[in-house]
């Protein structure tokens, strides 16, 4: 018998029991749907992270206190007070391949103006911050080196904070209180909008790191130092210079583990990629289990279908069907169930991913490759699990099959 005719028979059998076919394919539908959605959302997030890290610049090195192990997808962060403002100054002075150094200290604080009150993160940074981040004040000015050195009580507001506290008024020259300490607003940063993952970048207050440490947090160490290399091609040299300098300053014996670490955007990207890959692999395996369960469902119903149709099989055998004709008929039926399940799952997956994208403002990335693999895998599951019932059908004895009711 020709393939087209076997397919017609299989199609008719699937269409005859619509609800049953749908329920049978449901496992596959859910499996493929999960794979597509997970990969779409995961890949979207990964893409978004990559984009936002790229915007930090390719020639920026982050110097963090403590040791960070970037092995596989693991990152172990030991909190440490090892980085001091003096370290940052030393780097600025002594490392030839580093042009900008911007120390950072953070503290959470309410920002108060009159009866307006807003809770945000105060970022203590250096005067080079606008250059390093390519982000400049839209109104007023950024603080100067002198203001950093003298720990002046000045701050620059993010657009969101400015709007929350001052509405349409110009905040420049006004005073806000951070942890009850009065700060003069000297500027408002240009609006930057949300990050890919929905964080409002304008919900920020920038102040000299010296002021944040001395007047607000009382800490003597830095949370991080961002160092800009003279060019992307000098990153390696810059990193080596910083390492050598800090090992010397912190008196770390050769071979001993250092109490700081240096990350580049590239390192972080690689780490993020690894985390997402692992996550997608894990969720993908869960989805594959759903597919396997779907396959078992197909096998179950195909066994039922064969049992129900033993007499039909007997008739077909009697008029000359060969074992392989019967095998093909039932195998095609299983394949049809799994492939249509796969395609429905694909449609549902793409639909839900789009819905997530539009309602949660989450970027999605539908990967045609992994979608095709998911559907093909579903087809493979259908073939694998459809084989046993089909094979049993093909081995039936025609006389006994004809006798069955």
């Amino acid at each position: 018998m020709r393939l087209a005719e076997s397919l017609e028979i299989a199609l008719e059998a699937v269409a005859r029991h619509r609800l049953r076919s749908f329920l049978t394919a449901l496992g596959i539908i859910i499996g493929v749907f999960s794979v597509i959605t997970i990969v779409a959302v995961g890949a979207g997030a990964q893409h978004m992270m990559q984009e936002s890290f790229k915007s930090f610049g390719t020639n920026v090195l982050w110097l963090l206190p403590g040791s960070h192990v970037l092995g596989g997808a693991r990152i172990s962060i030991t909190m440490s007070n090892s980085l001091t403002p003096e370290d940052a100054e030393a780097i600025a002075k002594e490392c030839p391949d580093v042009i900008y150094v911007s120390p950072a200290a953070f503290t959470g604080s309410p920002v108060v103006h009159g009866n307006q009150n807003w809770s945000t993160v105060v970022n203590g940074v250096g005067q080079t911050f606008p250059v390093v981040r390519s982000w400049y004040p839209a109104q007023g000015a950024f603080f100067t080196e002198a203001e950093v050195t003298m720990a002046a009580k000045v701050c620059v507001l993010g657009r969101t904070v400015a709007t929350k506290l001052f509405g349409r008024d110009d905040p420049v020259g006004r005073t806000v209180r951070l942890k009850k300490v009065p700060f003069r607003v000297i500027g408002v940063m240009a609006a930057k909008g949300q990050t890919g993952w929905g964080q409002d970048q304008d919900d920020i207050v920038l102040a000299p790191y010296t002021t944040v440490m001395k007047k607000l947090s009382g800490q003597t160490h830095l949370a991080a130092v961002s160092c800009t290399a003279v060019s992307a091609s000098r990153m390696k040299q810059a990193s080596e210079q910083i390492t050598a300098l800090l090992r010397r300053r912190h008196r770390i014996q050769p071979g001993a583990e250092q109490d700081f670490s240096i990350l580049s955007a590239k390192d972080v990207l690689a780490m993020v990629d690894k985390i997402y890959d692992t996550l997608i692999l894990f969720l993908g395996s869960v989805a594959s289990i759903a597919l396997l369960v779907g396959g078992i469902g197909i096998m179950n119903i195909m066994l039922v279908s064969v049992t129900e149709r033993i007499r039909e099989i007997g008739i077909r055998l009697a008029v000359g069907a060969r074992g392989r004709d019967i095998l093909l008929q039932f195998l095609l039926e299983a394949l049809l169930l799994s492939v249509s399940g796969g395609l429905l799952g694909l449609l549902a997956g793409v639909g839900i991913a789009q819905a997530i994208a539009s309602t949660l403002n989450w970027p999605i990335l539908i990967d045609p490759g992994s979608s095709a693999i998911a559907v093909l895998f579903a087809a493979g599951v259908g073939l694998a699990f459809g084989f046993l019932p089909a094979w049993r059908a093909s081995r039936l004895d025609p006389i006994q099959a004809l006798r069955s009711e």
Partner: protein
Amino acid sequence: MSNDVVRVEELRKVYDLGEVQVEALCGVTLSIRRGEFVAVMGASGSGKSTFMNILGCLDRPTSGRYLLEAKDVSTMARDELASIRNTRIGFVFQGFNLLHRMSAVQNVELPMLYGDVPKTERRKRAVESLTAVGLGERQGHHPNQLSGGQQQRVAIARALVNRPAILLADEPTGNLDSRTSVEILELFQRLHRDGATIVMVTHEPDIAEYCSRQIHFRDGELVDDRLNPHVRDAAADLAAMPPAHRRA
């Protein structure tokens, strides 16, 4: 070549039921010539069904030879037997054995589906075959829209559509009322006159009277084999019967 369509020699069939072995056929030797209309008779358990199954290539003998059109089919593999069933044998069953989801013409097309006959040719031959059994008008009907006699005619059309060497009928009138039975026998006699070789199992002696040869099985052996000197004419019997009541 001889004129034998069927030649069986020392045909034996033993069913192994674990503890006991049942000998369903114990050495049957027989020939059926082209153009014969044979009634196979015997009580249940006499071995006639086993004989018919082997004749129909649905089963293989334990020993002995079965030559169908001078070809030894007793040692053929499953798929070869399927191909023999497809092209050389036509089956008619007591319970019609039509596929209920298919129309009459689709049922008749079924054997050709497995014989790789092209679609247009299939339809043409199926319609011809249905017309030959007097159902040309009902080709689109499904089995549940047809009477028992009509369903059996569809089954006969299906059995004949690949122009088999032999038509095997297993109690073909068993589910039919007496008038419809005679109608089916009239069809068989007409096919027989046109040259068909027919072997029909029946346990009713008056049905066997329409056949030209009668063979009897008992306990797995062929006990009687004779020509019927007074073959009844189904057409004449039908004419003598009161006209059929129109069924609602």
